[in-house]
């Protein structure tokens, strides 16, 4: 249910529309909760589920990791260079490194990883939407799909986490090499800078944000997919299911994280 569709409804239908909208969000949260419960239940880890999860991890993380890492390293290198040169030209070189770590590692890399996995997951769901199973409305099929989606949810969350962490570590190494070169003598100073940036609240915020990005990317398209399957709504749309909602949630998480950290 899109928000602007209210404009095309009679006022007496607004209540129903709001109820639909709320129910859609509720189903999304429910799926997220089911996925989490399934992820933490030992009974879930049957051979079939393990294989499904392994397949999703393979698709979402293993295949993507080299390309994403290379791409993010390239872009990060450019940004690191720009930031350091600018800081140096203003005589603020001691703040350049801190800024690189704050901007890239804490903010941009997790967001980029989430976006990347969301795109990839969306494509996977579009393919799934064409699956005949998606149109089977029997309870067994629904349960089957839910299990498969649960595997996909945990795999996607893991993919976001792994892309973000690998790229973050790589960016930290690149930043060090850019500032100090191959000399090991800057390590103490650099470690101190990293330690200064990663205050306990910032470090916990970073972890939580990455985790929530992972969950959002995993759950929202899956919930949208389930909705399509259940109600047949929006299947004809060329837009990736849940894309707008996903972007909205990612923005809210990022904004909330920034607000907590800097205000």
């Amino acid at each position, binding site marked *: 249910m899109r928000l602007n569709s209210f404009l095309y409804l009679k006022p007496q239908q607004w209540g129903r529309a709001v109820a639909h909208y709320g129910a859609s969000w509720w189903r999304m949260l429910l799926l997220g909760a089911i996925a989490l419960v399934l992820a933490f239940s030992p009974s879930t880890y049957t051979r079939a589920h393990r294989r499904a999860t392994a*397949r999703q991890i393979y698709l979402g993380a293993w295949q993507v990791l080299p390309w994403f890492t290379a791409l993010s390293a390239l872009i990060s290198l450019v940004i690191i260079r720009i930031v350091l040169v600018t800081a140096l030209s203003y005589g603020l070189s001691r703040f350049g490194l801190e800024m690189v770590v704050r901007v890239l590692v804490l903010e941009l890399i997790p967001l980029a990883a989430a976006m990347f996995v969301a795109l990839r997951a969306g494509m996977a769901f579009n393919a799934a939407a064409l699956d005949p199973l998606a149109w089977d409305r029997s309870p067994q099929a629904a349960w089957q799909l839910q299990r498969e989606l649960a595997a996909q949810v945990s795999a996607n969350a893991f993919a976001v986490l792994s892309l973000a*962490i690998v790229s973050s570590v790589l960016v930290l190494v690149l930043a060090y090499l850019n500032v100090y070169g191959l000399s090991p003598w800057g390590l103490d100073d650099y470690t*101190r800078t990293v*330690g200064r940036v990663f*205050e306990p609240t910032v470090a916990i915020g970073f972890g939580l944000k990455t985790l929530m990005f992972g969950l959002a990317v995993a759950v929202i398209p899956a919930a949208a997919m389930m909705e399509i399957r259940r109600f047949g709504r929006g299947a004809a749309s060329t837009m990736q299911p849940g894309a707008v909602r996903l972007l909205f949630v990612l923005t809210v998480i990022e904004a909330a994280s920034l607000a907590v950290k800097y205000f």
Partner: protein
Amino acid sequence: MTDPATDLATDAPPHIEVKAVILLILMTSLIVAFLLYVMYARGVFEVTQRLVLVADDSEGVIPGMDMTFAGFAVGRVRRVELAPDGKARILVDVPRKDASWLRVSSVFTIERGLVGDTKIKAYTGILTDPPLQDGATRMVLRGDTGAEIPKLVASARTLLENLEAMTRMDSSLNASLANVQAATGRLSGRYGLLGGALGGDAQASKAMLALDRVNALLASADRRVFGKSGIADDTQVAVAQLNVVLQDASASLKKLDAVLAEAQAVGKNARVATDDLTVLRAEVDSSLRKASRLLDDINRKWPFAPKSELTLP
């Protein structure tokens, strides 16, 4: 209905589970390593000693910031708290390996520049002093660029006010400049420097007139003094006459000289005569004394002589 697991199994790439497990292990170890590195960077594993810095104002001091010694970080602010006496207590953790740079005579400062964050610095003059004890409390000095700005602004304001007073229309500097302008205006007038010095062309013209009259006076004086039968001529005649008089005087003086020589000779004779007179007088004196003695003898021997005796009452 087909089993999706079977479907997945058929089109799955080889060793998919192994790859997934490898990835899981790699990621987990990477996350753990990253966490450990951040903890190390935060100084969780360091053995530290506590240093308490007491400051009037802890503005800009935040937990996690470094305390430096000679540009090297030797400590990290752990906590900032307000003491019951209203002073700020900055609790600094100093790693044991760096604590040797801090001695009992060390001085600590908080510096705040215009750009950038606040810095806590330690200075140690005598490295042979006893080391700083764990939990030591030290006062911290404050060097604040920001605090200097109001003073600077106040000074600049005074300066600007003075400048404004100097450049006002009715200021003394302006008046002086106007006077200078008037003077230079007069200097460039008809009578030039004379007009400038005397205060106007009218005065200068009077001065010129006076000069003309002085000139005329000088010409007339010249005529009277050096002209024909002027004072100079009369003076010359008088001088010639004076010369004759002087010659006469000289001759008279010569005569006087001769007279004086004569007088000198007379004086010499008189002195000799005076010497002889002294001898003569001595002889007369003795003759007189003899005569007096003779008379006394005669008186004594004379029977009618009055008795000269004294009777006491």
